[in-house]
């Protein structure tokens, strides 16, 4: 399914120049840093990152820097690819429950799978600047629960905050929660996927009224699931306990879809099975409490055990909007509990890019889009802050509404003390 956004395209042409931030010259060389490439090159110490026209031109220890290049000395600092948050609500609300600005779910409407969030996605959301100044450069934003099995389509975004923020249509979100018990929910999922497959294969007959099969979902909600049954877009399904993870493996095999599991609190128990079935998972590495009966096996070393078993995983945080950037702290905590540093960094950069098929970002290597962050220390240390954030080679100010509040009151302290 192509993402239809003619109005946005027109607007973007009009506004791009207005919204461009601090422009740097077309060629930029960042020198002297420890570069965590999240690629086969591993970590490059005292490296140079050469950017040209928004892309990585070269990276390494002995890179020839063109004389026209603008230089940034990053000696003693660390560089990583920009953080990619894999299942956010960034852009869907700044304040929960405000009927104008909260567009996170289709609840109360006749939409479920057909719910799409690009019509009123808020490019100006405060959470965009806030997450960006903390090093998040891209996200997959998905709707929250519609109260039905399917919640609707997500979008892939870059955190530029302009009218080009939405890049493409993202995964279909679904959850087995809140629609009857789990036996009922799984039956419904199987039934609907079977019906969608049938509908998709017999469209003309159904349309002409020759086929009078009645379906569980409305026509519009069914059609929204075509990209899933065709294997074009991933289905993001929340499953937590080991038994239902095994069930999810069977489900994927039956319909041959791209399945991504979120939650996955007990994934460590069936890690080798998930790896074999090629099912990636999104986990919150800080989830270590038996908060529900499908999470009794939650533990801090879930990530470390998945890594050992070869499962592809990305990290989420307990808040995927205002504080989504704290996924970096979670990655550090996963390291403390046994995950190798490089794997943890990949779980917030390369892996989410791989899982959602963002081929141009997620690692620092030649020809990739220049989304990167200069950090004032080890990128997974909790005391580290971003010193510079680049999206497509463009530097963004480390400002948000919150830094302005800070600066306003800090300067009032100084006046009082004078």
């Amino acid at each position, binding site marked *: 399914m192509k993402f239809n956004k003619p109005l946005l395209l027109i607007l973007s042409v009009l506004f791009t120049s207005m919204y461009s931030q601090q422009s740097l010259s077309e060629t930029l060389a960042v020198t002297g840093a420890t570069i965590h490439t999240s690629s086969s090159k591993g970590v490059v110490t005292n490296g140079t990152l050469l950017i040209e026209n928004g892309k990585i031109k070269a990276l390494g220890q002995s890179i020839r820097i063109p004389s026209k290049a603008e230089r940034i000395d990053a000696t003693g600092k660390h560089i990583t690819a920009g953080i990619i948050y894999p299942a956010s609500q960034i852009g869907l609300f*700044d*304040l*929960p*429950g405000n009927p104008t600005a909260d567009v996170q779910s289709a609840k109360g409407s006749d939409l479920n799978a057909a719910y799409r969030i690009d019509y009123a996605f808020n490019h100006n959301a*405060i*959470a965009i600047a*806030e997450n960006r100044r903390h090093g998040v450069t891209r996200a997959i934003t998905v709707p929250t629960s519609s109260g039905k099995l399917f919640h609707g389509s997500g979008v892939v975004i870059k955190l530029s905050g302009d009218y080009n923020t939405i890049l493409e249509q993202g995964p279909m979100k679904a959850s087995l929660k809140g629609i009857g018990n789990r036996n009922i929910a799984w039956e419904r999922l199987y039934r609907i996927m079977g019906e969608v497959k049938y509908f998709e294969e017999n469209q003309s007959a159904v349309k002409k009224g020759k086929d009078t099969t009645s379906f569980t979902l409305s026509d519009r909600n069914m059609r929204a699931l075509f990209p899933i049954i065709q294997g074009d877009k991933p289905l993001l399904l929340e499953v937590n306990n080991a038994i239902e993870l095994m069930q999810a493996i069977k489900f994927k095999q039956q319909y041959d879809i791209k399945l991504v599991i979120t939650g996955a609190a007990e994934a460590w128990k069936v890690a080798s099975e998930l790896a074999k079935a090629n099912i990636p998972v999104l986990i919150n590495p*800080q*989830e*270590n*409490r*038996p*908060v*529900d*009966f499908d*999470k*009794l*096996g939650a533990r801090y070393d879930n990530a470390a055990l998945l890594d050992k078993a070869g499962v592809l995983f990305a990290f989420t945080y*307990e*808040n995927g*909007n*205002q*504080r989504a950037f*704290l996924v970096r*702290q979670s990655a*550090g*905590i996963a*390291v*403390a*509990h046994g995950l190798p540093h490089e794997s943890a960094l990949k779980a917030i950069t390369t892996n989410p890019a791989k899982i959602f098929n963002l081929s141009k970002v997620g690692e620092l290597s030649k020809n990739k889009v220049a989304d990167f962050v200069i950090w*004032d220390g080890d990128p*997974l*240390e*909790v*005391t*580290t*802050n971003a010193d510079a954030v680049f999206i497509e080679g463009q530097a963004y100010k480390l400002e948000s509404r*919150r*830094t302005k*509040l*800070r600066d306003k*009151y*800090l300067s009032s*302290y100084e006046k*009082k003390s004078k």
Partner: protein
Amino acid sequence: MPLLKKLKKINIRWQMIAVAASLLVPQAYAHTINKDPYPSTYSPESSQLIAITNATVLTGAGEQIDNASILMNKGKIIGLGNNIQIPSNAKRIDGTGKWLTPGIIDAHSHLGLFSSPNHKSQKEGNEWTKPVTPEVWAEHSIWPQAPEFSRALEGGITTMLVLPGSANLFGGRGVTIKNVPSISREGMKFPNAPYSIKMACGENPKRTYGNKGGPKTSMGNMAGYRKAWQDAKAYQQKWQNYEQALKAGKKATPPARNVALDTLVGVLDNEILVHIHCYRADEMNSMINLSKEFDYKITAFHHAVESYKIANTLAKENICSAMWADWWGFKMESFDAIDENVPMVASQGACAVVHSDSAAQVQKLNQEAAKAWADGNKVGLNISKAQAFSWLTLNAAKILGIDKVTGSLEKGKNADVVLWSGDPFSSYSLTEQVYIDGNLMFDRKSNFNIIQSDFELGINE
């Protein structure tokens, strides 16, 4: 035993007795009202002589001592510093390359009230049946088997203030507990810790009662507090009249007992500490004015996301702020929360505490302080790690009213001690050992955790 040592020992005992006595609730109405009807039954096992040597020490009171050793015996810290004599019979633990801190105190916890696993019978935090419930006590809801306690212990938490939720104007009494295994609730209670009351400003009471008879607005909230304090004043007066009559040798009947007003009178009599859930600067100011109208002291504002706007006032009024490092934007009244709130409050000489209010963050409360510390220094506030650690320890102990016995590594204080694998301001450091009253409660190397929830027994086998 040499005479000097014996004298010292007696002296320490006297200090302990003095400390304990100062914490005891004065017995003003003791002839009719028992103010401690559910006393702590906690009594630690007598701990052995232990020395942890050559570690980097953060005292929890603002100092750092490098290459220092600590000596603990019979539940107390008996030595700390670079040049202390370690008796040959002491059990020695090599702390080289490691860090030592006091046990962390979480000044805002709901552990045992909102417990895992999710079930409607586990929602014990809010008595949201009416907006004024000073008669409910958190200690009567705590589930000692909550799976969260053992995890908090692994995070270095030795003491907590467990508070009722914020749905009500007066949510009830909080309870200070030690993070120790116990079948009974009383077995967790911190001996002689003063009682606390939880009050709440702002959106939560309005949201809870807006369509249930009110309060619906902030002015409705204020009216609700004032009415309650007015009732408390009248009740207090009745008891004073009664006592005066008795004193004058007159015959008098005691007023009818009211357990809700007993709690509020406890505040007016300076026996119960006031902890107020309050986000906004304007509402904190109103609460300060309210406390002056009815003549009581506010101990701490909790969450206090706008304390940075009134840091000078808070310093002047001697009110602490118990805060998150970086929570913001989850409702209108948290919209102005900033990452630098904690260090900015501290920078103005006001008392800062880092709290969790969360079963996840309580396990890494050291990291919450670390974030706030780093964000403050990034904007030039120049705070040391040693100062920042007091946000988790001595300052927290102060607002719980237990700073004379715990909250810092000092001779004579309870041996509540955490040994960290490295700098507790690093993501990669973990607790290695946690001691409460000199007893080893958690040891990572031997996979020992003294708290084992009965609920979790056998569920992951």
